[in-house]
């Protein structure tokens, strides 16, 4: 069994940061070739280093939280309301074009509209099952993209 490695302060690195602007007073966490990233909170950290650090932290959090469901009310809720409406329009539209009788079947337009309500409400209700707002947006956005491609193909080829 490995004993936990004690924290060893790394000798300040006198080279340049990945941006190449300032000498990087780094703690040795990330190194790309002979360049390093500014330490968090370093007074003269450049924007590039800060952004890169933020991204790495975000990804690390994502990896650590993998498998956990987050609340993320705004992300999931907005995906449910907006992507839900989009999906309702697109799927009801696909039904209108491809369903029995096609677009001009007598009296079909009302049912086409009524279909939107269960789809929209269903997506809003179930969008909180996604693990995060980002995933909700990606999945529902992807479904929207597919459905709208299909719908515009119908409009293009069938009309």
């Amino acid at each position, binding site marked *: 069994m490995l004993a936990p490695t004690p924290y060893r302060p790394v000798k300040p690195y006198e080279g340049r940061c990945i941006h190449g602007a300032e000498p990087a007073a780094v703690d040795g966490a990330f190194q790309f070739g002979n360049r390093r990233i500014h330490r968090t909170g370093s007074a003269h950290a450049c924007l590039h280093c800060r952004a890169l650090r933020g991204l790495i932290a975000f990804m690390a959090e994502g990896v650590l939280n993998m498998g956990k*469901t987050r609340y993320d009310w705004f992300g999931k809720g907005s995906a449910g309301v907006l992507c839900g409406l989009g999906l309702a329009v697109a799927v009801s539209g696909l039904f*209108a074009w491809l369903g029995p009788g096609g677009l001009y079947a007598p009296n079909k337009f009302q049912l086409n509209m009524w279909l939107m309500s269960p789809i929209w409400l269903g997506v809003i209700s179930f969008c909180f099952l996604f693990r995060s707002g980002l995933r909700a947006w990606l999945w529902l956005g992807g479904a929207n993209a597919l459905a709208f491609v299909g719908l515009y193909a119908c409009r293009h080829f069938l009309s």
Partner: protein
Amino acid sequence: MRTEVIRIYKTVHTWAGILTGLVLFIAFYAGAITVFKEPLERWIAPPNHSIRAPLTQMHELITQTLSARPDAGKEFTLHLGDEEHVPARLTWQKKTDGDVFWSTAIAQDGSLQIARIHPSGLARFVDMIHRTGGIPGNSEIGEHFMGVVAMLYGVALISGLIVLLPSLARNFLALRLGTKLKRIWLDAHNLIGVASFPFHLVMALSAVVFAFHDHLYDIQDAVVYAGKLKPIMKADSPFSAVKQDPQPAAMLPPDMLLARVKSLSPAFEPVMMQYRDAGTRGASVRVSGNDPRYMLRGKGFLVMSPVSGEILNTDYFPGRQDLWNAPVSAIFALHFASFGGDTVRWCYFFLGLAGAFLFYSGNRLWIETRSRDGRDKSAVQRRSTRFMAALTVGVCFGCISGISLTIVAGKWLHGHVADVDAWHKGIYYAVFLGSIAWAFLRDSQKAAVELLFLAAATTAAIPLTTLLAWVLPSLGMWVNDSPAAIGVDVVALAGALALLRMMRYRARNNVGNRYPLPVGEGWGEGI
């Protein structure tokens, strides 16, 4: 994963529920009454001495009316029923003069009587409360508001089911009375919620469409139909076969037209005939009526030409709705209870009241979960708990009292004030807002008992008014003695007794003051 999902959906359910519960209570209570809109109209209808011409005389009535008042020919209605709330055989409405209704009848000496009539707006007002949650002003604003509420309501329904699913088998039929107060409310809430889930799902889905259908059509027109929806709608209109033609033409008598409808479907009971462009070659008549064997949008109807007698459209006629119309009509019927006759209407009445109770119990549950221990009399409740406790009591019981009193006032004020409809509104809002104010000014525990008494008293006033009108005719009030009108009194009496029982239950269970105001702190401060 599983417990996390349930935790998330519990929060969703709580928020969606607490934001919409009280509005939904109003909508469901008023909706349950609206199921019996016609009996309410019959109860309130003042005595009507206009002569109801027999069917065979109606043709003459139309001819005389059209020659005396050509402006009525644009659109008028023949009422075929003889119930109290039917104002006259023939009526028309002028929207340009601000919703003025006119009626005609043939007097005994054969002359035509033309009169302005004032049908009671009571049942329409209760329906308006149902559709808008009682938001005053432009009903479109209220309906859009209700649409948003309905969406949250749908989310609350699904999330509630998700939360309950893992323990459904254990908790569904468990009603653990006598244990903790919170447990009782939770069990009752779960039982009613699960048992009437399909009913509520239909209500949520249809209410969203009723609120937003114009916008949904606009979106679909742009995205799906590429701007071609208007001509499609026009072609599918039940009046699409009617071509305008101003040339004068003689019309067939109504009884002959009704005979043709009867030959199409003997079980169809026609209720009214709405004429358009009467006396011209392009005239049309829409014959509406009931057939409890089919699911209809309120009433079923067909369109025919009164000139040729030809039936032009049966898309909305019971038993003749096509593949696409029938399912849409079914959703309407599942919302309006317009199928299966009185049996279904009674079911919907009780489902509606149970729905109102569902939302009330949800709020009580929210309050009980957050209230601090009742045994410690000095325990001070959180501001949010006290606020919701007072609001729940004020809104729910204020709505019941307001509707009951406005019904009663319809008879007491008739003939004493110029505009009874305005009084209906004023009385409802005065009682409703007054009850809320009362619940906030007083301790909500005490206010609950007092407001329940007010609700019971105002509801009992409905049959008492009828009794008084019967015993003392000098009061100038009237009694409609049809079973439907008396039924309103019987239901109101039963409702009053139920409210009285609830009041006694509440009074008995108010152990200690569980939502006390801290000394020196009123509601006006710091909210």
